[in-house]
């Protein structure tokens, strides 16, 4: 495997109409408008629906717990389930995810225990799970920085001859950061097996997309890096999954990175401490609530007679189970050891930190 690739990039601008395979009304889009993608099999669509519904229930529960003061903060992904779950289901267990604070439902869906997952937002420790076990990095707060980690990891895997891909989520606001540009460019030059999912939820806290870019779409940028770019309806799980599957396949095959912009909407406030009434109207939110990704897929599945009462019961039960487990995990007061503050700063023990640890210990004993 070499970083020294001679291939001439042949990429064009993405279609300015977001790719969708199932429309707002839950009907399959005609083949000629599918931009060469196929509707995933019904079993896959059912699994997408199931995971999104469970994620919605869980996200709602975590927001409620945050309102009750059980968590310090929680950035909800309500309304963005198609992007998050469509992406995660297109990944294999070997692929790595490099997420942001926004992407907790993706991490939950990847199998991270909610108690570990929410340690950061509860304020116990910055990051609670073992990234290597779940092949999921820490949630990045400094915007776009994680995109470079994804490219580095992917490049190392490629140099080592391992056929995996990495995925990173980037917000529309974060797409203005220099690290986004550097990550796209490094990935292009090194042909890194990384798929960038730009979750365009149209807001960076209060700032709308129109203040971030003059570009037609964020996916338009891809051509400048010699990378294929897709502009996808981010509330259509079928489309996100189809595009992501192809992009991941391509990356694992050794054909390089892809940029996938998913157009969606942040239905909740930025976090619990945000006041969205200052920058957007209830009408806007209502319009987007009407384009709900879960309802859309549900309509399609119902039209195909693919969602039985038993299916619904199982999904509801699983959602409730996850919610209850999370309530329980968040109600137990964590036992924190202040001595841990010094334990992980370095691998190699530092005399000065041993001194400071003893100082804190003595203070506690007074």
């Amino acid at each position, binding site marked *: *495997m*070499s*970083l*020294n690739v001679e291939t001439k990039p042949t990429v064009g601008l993405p279609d300015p109409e977001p790719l969708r395979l199932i429309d707002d009304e839950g009907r399959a889009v005609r083949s000629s408008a599918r931009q060469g993608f196929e509707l995933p099999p019904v079993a896959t669509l059912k699994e997408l629906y199931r995971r999104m519904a469970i994620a919605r229930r869980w996200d709602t529960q975590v927001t409620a717990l945050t309102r009750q003061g059980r968590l310090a903060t929680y950035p909800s992904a309500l309304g963005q389930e198609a992007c998050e779950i469509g992406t995660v289901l297109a990944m294999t267990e070997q692929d790595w995810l*490099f997420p942001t604070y926004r992407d907790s439902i993706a991490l939950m869906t990847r199998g991270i225990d909610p108690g570990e997952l929410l340690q950061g937002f509860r304020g116990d*420790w*910055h*990051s*609670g799970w*073992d*990234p*290597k076990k779940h092949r999921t*990095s*820490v949630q990045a707060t*400094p915007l776009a*920085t994680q*995109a*470079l*980690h*994804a*490219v*580095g*990891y*992917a*490049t*190392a*895997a490629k*140099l*080592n001859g391992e056929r995996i891909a*990495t995925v990173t989520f980037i917000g529309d606001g974060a797409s203005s950061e*220099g*690290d986004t540009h*550097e*990550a796209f*460019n*490094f990935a292009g*030059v090194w042909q890194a097996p990384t798929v960038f999912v730009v979750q365009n939820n149209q807001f960076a806290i209060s700032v709308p997309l129109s203040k971030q870019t003059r570009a037609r779409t964020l996916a338009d940028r891809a051509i400048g890096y010699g990378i294929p770019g897709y502009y996808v309806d981010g509330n259509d799980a079928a489309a996100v999954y189809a595009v992501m599957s192809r992009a991941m396949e391509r990356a694992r095959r050794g054909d390089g990175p892809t940029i996938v912009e998913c157009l969606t909407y942040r239905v909740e406030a930025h976090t619990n401490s945000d006041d969205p009434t200052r920058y957007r109207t209830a009408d806007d939110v209502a319009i987007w609530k009407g384009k709900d990704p879960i309802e859309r897929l549900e309509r399609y599945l119902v039209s195909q007679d693919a969602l039985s009462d038993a299916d619904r019961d199982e999904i509801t039960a699983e959602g409730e189970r996850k919610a209850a487990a999370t309530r329980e995990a968040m109600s137990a007061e964590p036992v924190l050891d202040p001595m*841990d503050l010094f*334990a*992980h*700063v*370095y*691998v*190699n023990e*530092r*005399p*000065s930190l041993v001194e400071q640890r003893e100082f804190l210990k003595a203070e506690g004993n007074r």
Partner: protein
Amino acid sequence: MTTTEAKPITMAAALNAALRDAIAEDPTVVVYGEDVGPLGGVFRVTDGLQAEFGENRVWDSPLAESGIVGTAVGMAMYGMRPVVEMQFDAFSYPAFEQIVSHVAKMHNRTKGRVALPMVIRIPASGGIGGVEHHSDSSEAYWTHTPGLTVVMPSNPADAYSLMREAIRSDDPVIFMEPKSRYWSKQEVALPVTTEPIGTAKVVREGTDVTLIAYGPTVATALETAEMAEAEELSIEVIDLRSLSPFDDATVGASVRKTSRAAVIHEAAQFGGFGAEVAARVTEREFYHLAAPILRITGFDIPYPSPKLEEYYLPTPERILNALATWEWELP
């Protein structure tokens, strides 16, 4: 492994040998940055490495420092040991966020589950007649950041040994290379192992005053000690080598002996590394001190243009003068 008879080699050559030996010994070591490939780096520290080990071990990356360090974070997470180069001190600043927010914090954030064994090489400090932005001393930014290890050799033997240790370390290391010492020679047989990271070294014994120096100012301090002999002033010189962790024991022992100390560095004084040295030595050794600890450093100005840098850099004359006019007797 580079094995040579004792012969004079430059610091650049010692660093080159250290990188070569590390790449040869450990298949996870990779080296990349700006111009480190066919050119061998603007200071030739990576000279010949790409030709010897190929483009998958040593390569030219796109020109973006945040990208270089950020991708190295990902590579280290994978299990590689990247050694990346920032071309000049001031050009490490685009990578500041990656270094401070991720390189320094990953192991702590993950409760020790993810270590980042990586080395960030930074050609540092001035004295080479570089035009603006080529002569900064950025050490205080890094030493102020918990999670980083910061070293700065002053001679070829230490350069080799500290580099080998830095690459083997499971903690990320900021490796500062004093540009003005790149071409200084020392008789060394390779491979060489000197004192480990975290250890300072008394490089000249004396009884009247301790000069605490690192990187480029070690030579200045030694020259000062030489000149002071004529005035019957006995100067002890400490080469810190490792700025973080800091060797309180060696510095403390020396100060207890001499009762007087001055820190010499090129960086500006205010909020500089010398302030930390002065403060911690005072806290620990106040009883043994006969005078306040002096800082003989660059002025609190942006690094000057080449024709004025001689007025900025601490010289033996300036140090001797400072020692001579230093009031430490009680009135």
